[in-house]
């Protein structure tokens, strides 16, 4: 079994459209959350609190003809892949194309494209519909377009496991590197869910924050006054390759992905307080198998009442009151980008390990007694990090955990 190194990272996020800009703003504790009025089909405005990747300029990454036939999630994925490849100094050519694979996670597919098209069809008639609608709305679109754009021909997949999509895509890609069936895997998540149909559906379920007065304080994981998650968008992509080869070549290594494990909690119901015993068991097995204790947990922490409480309980029951373990919630700054969110956590874990710094959790003002005994710094902290744990605990009951170690 080969070990897996992360040698490239690409990011399009609400707080920065490059790896460096993202991490700088993350460490500074930035929020660019805003109020926006999205127009729905009937021309009515829907007031939303969202974290958009406002600085993202798709036209810098794709020619017009491709932009017009694809969804925003594809644009962001291609931009993030471009950056990750450059970072890893990986050039895909005829000689290596069949040994390079692409593993992307997306939960909703091209919903932005689909909604815009439906909008046009219902208001101006079907003859306004793009012939590329079906192709662009399928979740596979980002995989297909990116494979064409970069010339990727190796074993690949499009994983769609709701909130866990990005984490599971990276987990699947690791397996291909470990087994040696791929020389390089490009893996991550992308999502562009900021459309009225998505916002209104999640809001009707009571899952979104309604802190319209102070949007930048809307996302407050583990805080007593948290009232729902902040919908956001973005893409985070990693380049994975065998650790020994990366070391031999003297490549920059952000981190090692030590292990990944996933499971499902059939009893879990996000509408009420319900146990998540399988998550706990999966996490315990993973830690035991690797004899690992994390120094830092890059938590799922979405800022929703029951979900944060459940995760805090899971951490407490697994690690006890260990003050050595620091927890952070990056969603306090970048919100919840559904299928991309796990890839953001993993990319953040890599950057934290490389820079030996733990990002802050902003808006964490009044600790919720029900999420107590977690060590959650409000400001960024220098730390000696060896092992990082990433939790992804989706609303559907899907559990995914990733253990990362310090690269050499």
């Amino acid at each position, binding site marked *: 079994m080969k070990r897996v190194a992360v040698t490239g990272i690409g990011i399009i996020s609400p707080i920065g459209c490059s790896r460096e800009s993202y991490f700088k703003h993350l460490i500074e504790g930035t929020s660019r959350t805003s109020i926006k009025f999205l127009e729905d089909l009937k021309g009515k405005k829907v007031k939303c609190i969202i974290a958009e990747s406002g600085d993202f300029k798709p036209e810098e990454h794709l020619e017009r003809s491709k932009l017009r036939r694809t969804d925003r999630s594809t644009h962001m994925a291609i931009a993030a892949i471009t950056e990750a490849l450059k970072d890893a100094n990986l050039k895909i050519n005829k000689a290596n194309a069949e040994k390079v694979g*692409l593993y992307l996670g997306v939960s*909703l597919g091209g919903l932005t494209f689909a909604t815009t098209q439906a909008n046009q069809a219902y208001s101006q008639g079907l003859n306004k519909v793009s012939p*590329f609608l079906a192709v662009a709305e399928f979740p596979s679109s980002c995989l*297909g377009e990116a494979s064409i754009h970069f010339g990727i021909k190796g074993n690949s997949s499009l*994983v*769609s496991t709701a909130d866990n999509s990005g984490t599971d895509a990276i987990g699947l890609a690791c397996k291909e590197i470990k087994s040696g069936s791929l020389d390089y895997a490009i893996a991550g998540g992308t999502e562009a869910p900021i459309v009225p149909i998505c916002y209104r559906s999640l809001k009707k379920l009571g899952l979104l924050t309604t802190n319209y007065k102070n949007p930048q304080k809307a996302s407050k994981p583990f805080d007593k006054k948290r009232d729902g998650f902040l919908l956001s968008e973005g893409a985070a992509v990693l380049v994975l390759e065998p650790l020994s080869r990366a070391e031999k070549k003297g490549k920059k290594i952000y981190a090692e992905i030590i292990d990944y494990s996933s*499971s*499902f909690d*059939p009893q879990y119901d996000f509408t009420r307080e319900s146990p998540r015993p399988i998550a706990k068991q999966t996490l315990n097995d993973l830690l035991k198998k690797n004899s690992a204790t994390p120094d830092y947990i890059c938590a799922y922490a979405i800022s929703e009442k029951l979900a944060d409480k459940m995760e805090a309980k899971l951490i407490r029951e697994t690690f006890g009151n260990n003050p050595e373990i620091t927890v952070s919630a990056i969603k306090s700054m970048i919100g919840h980008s559904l299928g991309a969110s796990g890839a953001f956590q993993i990319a953040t874990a890599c950057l934290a390990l490389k820079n030996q710094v733990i990002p802050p959790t902003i808006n964490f003002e009044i600790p919720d007694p029900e999420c107590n005994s977690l060590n959650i710094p409000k400001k960024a902290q220098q730390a000696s990090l060896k092992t990082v744990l990433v939790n992804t605990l989706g609303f559907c009951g899907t559990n995914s955990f990733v253990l990362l170690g310090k690269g050499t």
Partner: protein
Amino acid sequence: MARRFKKNRVVVTGLGVVSPAGNNPNSFWEAISQGHSAVKHIARFDASKFNCQIAAEVDNNFDENQIIPSELKAMTDLFSQFALVSTINAVENSGLTKKELKKSRCGVIIGTAAGGLSFAEKELRKKRNQLHPHTVFAIFPINPAVLVSKYFGLTAPITAISTACSATSDAIGLAYQRIKEGKTNVMVAGGADSNIEPITFYSLSLLRIMSKSNRFPIKACKPFDKHRDGLVLGEGAATLVLENYEHALARGAKIYAEILGWGFSLDAYHITAREPSGDQALRAVKIALDRARLDPKDIQYISAHGTATKNNDVVETKFIKKIFKDHAYNLLISSIKPVVGHGMGAASAMQAVANTLIFNRNLVPPTINYTTPDPDCDLNYVPSKPVKKRVDYILQNSAGFAGINSVLVLGRVV
């Protein structure tokens, strides 16, 4: 001759199907082997102004045993409902109990091209305040796997693979790997799609890949025929219960077939057309045959992707000839799509169920509507009538938008 792996062999022990041509494996088999096409004028919406007005639709009464409660029906897309019914039937067919499924750490992998985007299209048609709160969850491609795992109380990892029209070949491939690696003894692998909604349908018709033979729906889809003019859209679901061979033997299960290999590649060429040389598709075939430890000449039947588009059928024929050389002319090749339509993500699931049954019935289903040979497609496509033959090894081709190639190799259990 084949050299078999001895450890962790993966066999098929349960089948379920919800298709335009029948909602159980028997009636589905009857339709595809006898060539009774389910293609009709579209009933679900008024398509009279469209270029393409035909499709193969699943009957409204597909949930014959009323498995799905009405409140669940209201909050899920048809693709999830098809998958749930087909999976429950497949598990029942396998004879595995809930307890056995749990004990063997059964995982669920579902392939789909669109997920629940049709649900979104329907919701967008409604008045503003009527949006179903669960819309987002209904769209998630993972939705059916969640429903299945909750239904049986399963705790193993669940996944949805969305690699367009080859999604279920990939779902089966991944499930096969999990058993092969010894992670579990049982996997549920299936696929589902439902895209017969006006906007999506209209958009597909603009791609010039759909048949305009609206006058004779059952004769519309003509794979490999010189006068073929495009695919006919289908829908539905199909599920396979995959099991470790020893595990299946120990419980005295009925064993339908063995999954021997899976191969994948990307063309990296074009968003809708297949790469003309077929070289990447060919590479996927080679990977699958290598993993199966078979020579090309071991294969006797190819379950073709056979969509009846100009492009696919020529490229598919070409790469078959490239890899099989002279043996290509001995092969039986057929497409079931004239009967059940192109079920997109469900297409390869239905192919897999059909292929599994071939070992059982010693009959190869025909390609119906094949009457005029195309000089570019000059192989034996089993025209019109089924052929009686004992087949031991089958190759299953699938292809998805943007040049996704996925290939499975299935074998008779001996």
